[in-house]
């Protein structure tokens, strides 16, 4: 490509990126180190990138606290359920658009896209959830966010890439739309299915705004996803939001416990992410392709 290789330029760029890598990694390493350090080192602020006075007491504490373990288990269950439900809905929503002869296709498209640009807002949504009886109900974490229009468009643009001739030959063989979807489109779309499942899974694993909004009473604390628990624990440390204050979280946790919670909430993503990176990247790249 570039025929004028300037060694100095290359060197500077590499140095620049090494610095950036440090900026990205050091904060995370710091948190990991702190979660495994002894309290006296923590208080003196001696822990930087590697643990001092290595111990796993904080993890032990978290592990023995049913509040954390249950929340973790619930978040795993929730993430699985949400991903499955979302994927079914997304495929169902994207597939009919493949048929160019579908009447109302354009109207449906506008109907969907409109919601990307104009949302009703927090209060109207809250009122709806209340009138549906979903406030303080675990389903509120699943149903409202079940379908992401952006992901539908992603899936759709991938489907568009599958040649119509394959579909038409299947139709000649007597396959109906549903059979075409199951036998041809889904097997051919494995990469995009993986990508979008990951988007949904990560979105659910990391999301806590809906839980914060819709799980109001102390009774519904048991449905708190791990991220909301983490949020609440931190808020207790800084005690910002008086309305969120409640005694159900027990004693104020120590710093090491918070660090351990952060680590636990991060690890699943750290585990899957490097192996699935290409799918994520493919998803974003696909999203940038305009219809």
């Amino acid at each position, binding site marked *: 490509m570039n025929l004028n290789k300037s060694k100095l330029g290359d060197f500077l760029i590499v140095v620049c990126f090494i610095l950036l890598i440090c900026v990205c990694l050091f904060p995370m390493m710091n948190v990991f180190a702190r979660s495994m350090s002894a309290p006296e080192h923590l208080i003196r602020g001696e822990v930087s990138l590697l643990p001092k006075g290595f111990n796993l007491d904080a993890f032990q504490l978290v592990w023995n606290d049913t509040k954390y373990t249950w929340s973790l288990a619930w978040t795993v269950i929730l993430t699985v359920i949400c991903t499955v439900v979302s994927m079914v809905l997304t495929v169902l929503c994207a597939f009919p658009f493949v048929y160019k002869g579908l009447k109302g296709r354009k109207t449906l498209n506008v109907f969907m896209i409109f919601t990307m640009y104009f949302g009703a807002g927090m209060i109207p949504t809250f009122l709806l959830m209340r009138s549906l009886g979903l406030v303080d109900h675990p389903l509120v974490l699943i149903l409202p966010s079940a379908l992401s229009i952006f992901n539908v468009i992603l899936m759709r643009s991938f489907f568009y890439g599958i040649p119509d001739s394959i579909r038409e030959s299947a139709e000649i063989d007597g396959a109906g739309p549903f059979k075409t979807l199951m036998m041809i489109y889904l097997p051919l779309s494995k990469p995009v299915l993986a990508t979008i499942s990951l988007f949904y899974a990560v979105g659910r694993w990391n999301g806590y705004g809906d839980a*914060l909004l819709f799980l109001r009473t102390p009774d519904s604390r048991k449905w708190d996803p791990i991220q909301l628990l983490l949020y609440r624990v931190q808020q207790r440390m800084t005690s910002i939001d008086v309305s969120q204050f409640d005694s159900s979280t027990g004693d104020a946790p120590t710093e090491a416990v918070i660090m351990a919670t952060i680590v636990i909430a991060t690890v699943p993503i750290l585990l899957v992410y490097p192996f699935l990176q290409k799918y994520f990247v493919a998803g974003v790249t696909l999203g940038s392709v305009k219809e």
Partner: protein
Amino acid sequence: MSDNPNQVHLNNENFPGKLKTAIGAFPMRVNATIAGTILVLVFSLLEWVNLGGGVRFNLFTLQLLDMRSKVEAAQLEWVFDGMEGFMNFRSFLSIFLIILVVSILFLVISIIWHKSKFLRALSYWGFGGAILSSTVFIFSILITVGDRGSDVLTAIPLCILFASVITMFFFPFDTPAKFVNYIKRYWVLYILLILPLAQIIVFRYGPMINILAAFKDNAFLSPVLDRSWAGNDGFEFFIEAFNDLEFREAFRNTLVLSFLEIVMGFPVPIILAILLNELRLRKFKRVTQTILYLPHFLSWAIVAGIATTVLGTSGLLNNFLGTEIRFLQDQTNWVFSYIVIGIWKGMGWGTIIYLAAITGINPELYEAAAVDGAKRFRLIWHITLPGIRPVIILLLILSIGGIMGNSFERIMAMRNPLVHRVSDVIEVYTYVRGVAGMQQALAAAVGLFQSVVSVILLFGANYFAKKTGERGLL
């Protein structure tokens, strides 16, 4: 497919006499509409006869009774200002009857004189217009009076009427045969769409009716439609919001944070993508990308936790610098920390889309320029940047559309009591007042203001981009 009412389709061969010709003279959708309207009339008539005027379930009198009682309670006067005659039972009924009679008149005209193109067109649009206006009329009364037509029996004729209007203007089939063929082939697709569409309707369009809460009084527990209208023609709470110092601060904070975010954060992924593209060590490049993308996958709660740890007065950064800067406790510092943390989380991820765009640039351009003696910076400036310009513009439009909104999760995780005067953006205001507090109407008004301004900004930016010759968003 065409909206041309002058097309003649004679396909009902077995139908006798003049009526056959008349029906055949119209596209199927007109006939379907006529059938729908007749159905509604029969339905209403049956209700009228069976239940007697003034009893519930009656399409006409139900609305009227509710209207009268509510207006007498003096809660809705502004709706009917200067329209006293309108309240009258007879005038209400007569308006509706006139509309119906007119539409039937057009129907009759069209059947008798169906051979005249002009009359047929006139009757087509007249008939459609008449039922359209009557439907809008009924819906407007339902909405303004606050009766949701909660009875199924009331809803049925309304739905038929509405479907008739839609059919009239949008039904895309001219003959029943085409319609049947189409349905045979495509019905499965509509079945597949039921669940996702239900989700969209319930959870995305469903809340929109509650936007009315912005124009109604606070009544924390009652449904929005049952609430009485707010003062000042319903704009009471918008006025209150703009007179509220806290809201003005929230508005200011929103603008300041978003503006800084765009100015400081927007160029970062572009620069990084260009630098990444210049990186020639393949393995190093891949590792770098993996690590740079990583923060994107941490939730805001985690990022806030990391930030508190690293940026604390005795945190990693202060230890490294040997200082005790209050990154998160000082107002000005907090603003910049907020922006920088956002950049930290998003910079790597943001490069993907630009890298994809750079890959799409024709390599011959680089070679040709290099032959002409262009150095690295000139290549970037004259080839790479223009090559990714459409993507840059697209993302810029999107971020301008997002000026009015900050991520709720982000701001909730990052704010703290020491900096609330610069951190409490509109989302926080809405949340604290409307969800945690009891001022729903005020919060809804603020939220509506926010949504509307966002849409205007987005389309404004898009319009501007298109005016200046860019591809734009839509």
